[in-house]
C-alpha cells in the first residue's frame, strides 16, 4: 500500500508569504470591483511601536516615589508661546479630532462629558462644531481643515484653541472622506453638501500654500480671535523633522504629530497601510526638531497615532511629548468592536449586525459604512441610540482615569514627581528597529543604531 509522508501534506498546503490568503482576497476584490478598498480605523500591520520600549525603573542609582501616597503631578499647559489664554489640562491625555459625521452626535457629547470630568480637551473634526459638543466639553479645540466644512467665525470665537489640520497620520497627503450613507440631512446641512453624496474633501487648504502662507493664515486666525487662543498645527507623520520645524516657523503654539497608526473614519486601505511613518519614529523626529530650534518647552508637542495604554502615554512623554491625543482607544472604550451594546438598561447582542457587515467583533473596521453595530460611527437614527452620552461618558472616564493612573505609576517608579519629568534616559528599546527610531539604547547596551558604538 502506498503511503504519503506527513510532511508532504504540509508542503502541499504551504501558504505563500507574498501571495498569502489576505493578498489573494485583495486581488480578487480589486478584480471584482475595479475600486480600491475603503475602510476605517488605522494601520493593521505590525509596526515598531511603544511596546518595543521599556522603562528603567528606579533602583540603586535612582530613587522611586511611593506609588500610592507621594504626589505625582499631571497638569499640562499647552499654547504658552503666543496665546493670551493657554490651555490648562489636568491630565496630558486629550481626545483626538473626530468629526460629527464620522461619529454620532451622542458620541461627540459623550466625549465632551468625559473629557470635562477628567479635565482634558476634545477636538472637533471635518464637519464643524456641534452645539452638543460645545455644551458638553469645557475645553474644545476647533479644527480648521482644508474642506472648511461648517467653519465659521462664531464657532472660532467659541473655541478654546484652534487646530490647523495639515494632515492626518492615517492619510498624510489626503483629504477627508465621508461616504453617502453617513451624509444624513443634519450632516449635509452642516457641510453645505447634497444629502447622501460620497464626500471627498480637499487635501490642501483653499487659501494658502506652503509654510510662509501658513504664517499669515495663523496670524489671521490670531487677529480674528484677538491673540487669545492657542493655535495648534497638526501634521501626519512623514518628513516629521522638517514639518515640525516649518510648523514652528509658521507660528504654531502647539504641534500635533499623528503617526501612521492613527485612525480614520474612511480612507483607502493602501493609504492607511503604506503612507506615513510609525508614531514611534515620528516622536523622536518631532522632539529633535524642537530641540534643534531651541523650542522644546516653548512650543508644545502632542503625539497621537495608536496610543492605547498608560504605558504608551508614559513612553510618549518620556520621549519628549507634552501630551498625547487618543482616537481609536477612546472609541474602543465606548464599545467599538464589542460584542454587545447597552440600551434601555440591558446589554444586547450585536454580533448579527457585525456579521451583516461581513465581519465579527474584534476585527471590525467598517466605520465608513455608517452601520456601526454598537452605534458609534453612525448617523443612522436607530443605530445611534445604541450609545447614550451618559453611558459612553462613564466608560470613557474610566478609561482615561486608568491611563492616568498607569502613567503616574510608571512616573513614580522612575522617581518623578511630575509626569513631564519623564525623560528619554528612562527608556531602553527591545528591538534594534525601535532603538534606531526612538533614539534610545538597545536594552542592556549603550548602542543607539545610527549614532555609532
Amino acid at each position, binding site marked *: 500500500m502506498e503511503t504519503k509522508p506527513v510532511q508532504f501534506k504540509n508542503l502541499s498546503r504551504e501558504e505563500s508569504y507574498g501571495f498569502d490568503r489576505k493578498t489573494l482576497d485583495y486581488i480578487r476584490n480589486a478584480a471584482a*470591483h*475595479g*475600486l480600491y478598498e475603503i475602510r476605517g480605523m488605522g494601520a493593521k500591520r505590525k509596526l515598531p511601536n511603544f511596546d518595543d520600549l521599556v522603562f528603567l525603573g528606579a533602583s540603586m542609582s535612582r530613587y522611586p516615589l511611593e506609588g500610592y501616597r507621594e504626589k505625582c503631578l499631571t497638569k499640562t499647559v499647552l499654547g504658552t508661546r503666543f496665546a493670551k489664554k493657554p490651555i490648562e489640562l489636568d491630565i496630558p491625555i486629550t481626545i483626538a479630532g473626530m468629526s460629527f459625521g464620522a461619529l454620532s452626535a451622542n458620541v461627540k457629547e459623550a466625549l465632551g462629558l468625559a473629557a470635562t470630568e477628567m479635565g482634558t480637551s476634545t477636538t472637533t473634526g471635518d464637519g464643524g462644531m456641534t452645539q452638543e459638543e460645545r455644551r458638553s466639553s469645557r475645553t474644545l479645540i476647533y479644527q480648521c481643515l482644508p*474642506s*472648511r466644512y461648517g*467653519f*465659521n*467665525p*462664531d464657532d*472660532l*470665537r467659541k473655541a478654546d484653541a484652534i487646530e490647523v489640520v495639515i494632515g492626518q497620520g492615517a492619510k498624510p497627503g489626503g483629504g477627508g472622506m465621508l*461616504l*453617502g450613507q453617513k451624509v444624513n440631512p443634519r450632516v449635509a446641512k452642516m*457641510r*453645505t*453638501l*447634497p444629502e447622501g*453624496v*460620497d464626500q471627498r474633501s*480637499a487635501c490642501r487648504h*483653499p*487659501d*494658502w500654500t506652503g509654510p510662509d*502662507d501658513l504664517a*499669515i*493664515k495663523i*496670524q*489671521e486666525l490670531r*487677529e*480674528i*480671535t*484677538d*491673540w487669545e487662543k492657542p493655535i495648534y498645527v497638526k501634521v501626519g507623520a512623514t518628513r516629521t523633522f522638517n514639518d515640525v520645524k516649518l510648523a514652528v516657523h509658521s507660528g504654531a503654539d502647539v504641534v500635533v504629530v499623528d503617526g501612521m497608526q492613527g485612525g480614520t473614519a474612511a480612507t483607502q486601505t493602501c493609504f492607511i497601510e503604506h503612507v506615513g511613518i510609525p508614531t514611534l519614529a515620528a516622536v523622536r523626529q518631532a522632539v529633535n526638531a524642537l530641540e534643534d530650534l531651541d523650542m522644546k518647552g516653548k512650543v508644545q508637542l502632542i503625539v497621537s497615532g495608536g496610543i492605547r495604554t498608560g504605558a504608551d502615554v508614559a513612553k510618549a512623554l518620556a520621549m519628549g511629548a507634552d501630551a498625547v491625543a487618543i482616537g481609536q482607544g477612546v472609541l474602543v472604550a465606548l464599545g467599538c468592536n464589542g460584542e454587545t451594546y447597552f440600551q434601555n438598561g440591558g446589554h444586547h447582542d450585536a454580533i448579527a449586525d457585525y456579521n451583516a457587515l461581513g465581519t465579527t467583533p474584534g476585527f471590525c473596521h467598517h466605520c465608513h459604512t455608517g452601520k456601526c453595530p454598537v452605534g458609534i460611527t453612525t448617523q443612522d437614527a436607530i443605530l445611534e441610540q445604541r450609545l447614550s452620552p451618559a453611558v459612553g461618558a462613564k466608560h470613557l472616564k474610566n478609561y482615561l482615569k486608568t491611563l492616568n493612573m498607569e502613567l503616574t505609576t510608571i512616573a513614580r517608579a522612575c522617581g518623578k514627581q511630575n509626569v513631564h519629568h519623564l525623560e528619554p534616559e528612562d527608556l531602553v528599546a527591545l528591538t534594534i528597529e525601535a532603538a534606531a527610531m526612538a533614539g534610545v539604547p538597545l536594552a542592556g547596551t549603550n548602542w543607539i543604531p545610527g549614532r555609532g558604538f
Partner: protein
Amino acid sequence: MERLTFDLAAQPLRELNTFLHTGAKEGKVGHVTVLNPDGAHNIAVGLDCPIDVEVVGHAGYYAGGMNKAATVTITGSAGTGVAENMMSGKVHVKGFASNGAGASAHGGLLVIEGDAGLRCGISLKGGNIVVGGSVGSFSAFMAQAGRMVICGDAGDALGDSLYEAVLYVKGEVKSLGADAQYEEMSAEDIAAVASLLDQAGLDHDPKAFKRIASKRSLYHWNADANQEY
C-alpha cells in the same frame, strides 16, 4: 454716525482689528477709513457688526477675512484669500484680487472690479462673487453652493468637481473642469445675474452670460469613471 481714521503707517494693525471687534460693536462709529495699508495682511478680519470700512490703497492676504455683516471696500488691489470664509456682508475690491479670492465663503457678496487670480471661489459654500474682469485657472474648484458671475474670461478647469454652486461667465472659458457642464440660462438665471451685477455696480447684459453647473456624475464612487476626476 461718527467716522474714524486709522493710519497703519503710525498705528499697529492690532489696534485697528481690536477696535473693529470691540469698539465698533458699540455702534457709535459707522465708518472707518484705513490709510497707508501698504499691503499689510489681515486687515479688517473677523468683523462682526454692520460697519463700513474703507481701505485706501492695497491690502495683503485675507483682507476682510471671515467677514460678517460689515462692508469692507478696498480701493486698490487685494492679496491672496480676500474675503475668505465670509459669512455675510460685502467685500468690494476696486482693483485686482490675487489667488483664492472668496475661498469657502458661506455668504455675503464679494465684488472684484478687476481680474482675480487662481482658484477664485474655491470651496465656495453659499457666498456670491462678482468679478468684473477675468478669473484664473481652477476657479470655483469644489464649489458647493453660491454663485459666481465672471464678466471676463476664465482660465483652465473652471468649476472642477463642482457641487451645487452655479457659475455665470460672459467671456471665453479656456476649459471646464471635471464634472462641470454648460446649461441653458433660464429666466431665473438671468434675473439672478442681473441682480448680482446690480449689487456689484457693474454694467453688463445679463443675457450675454453662460451658465455652468455640475453634471453630478461624481457625487458617488463609480468604478467606470476611470479616475477622470
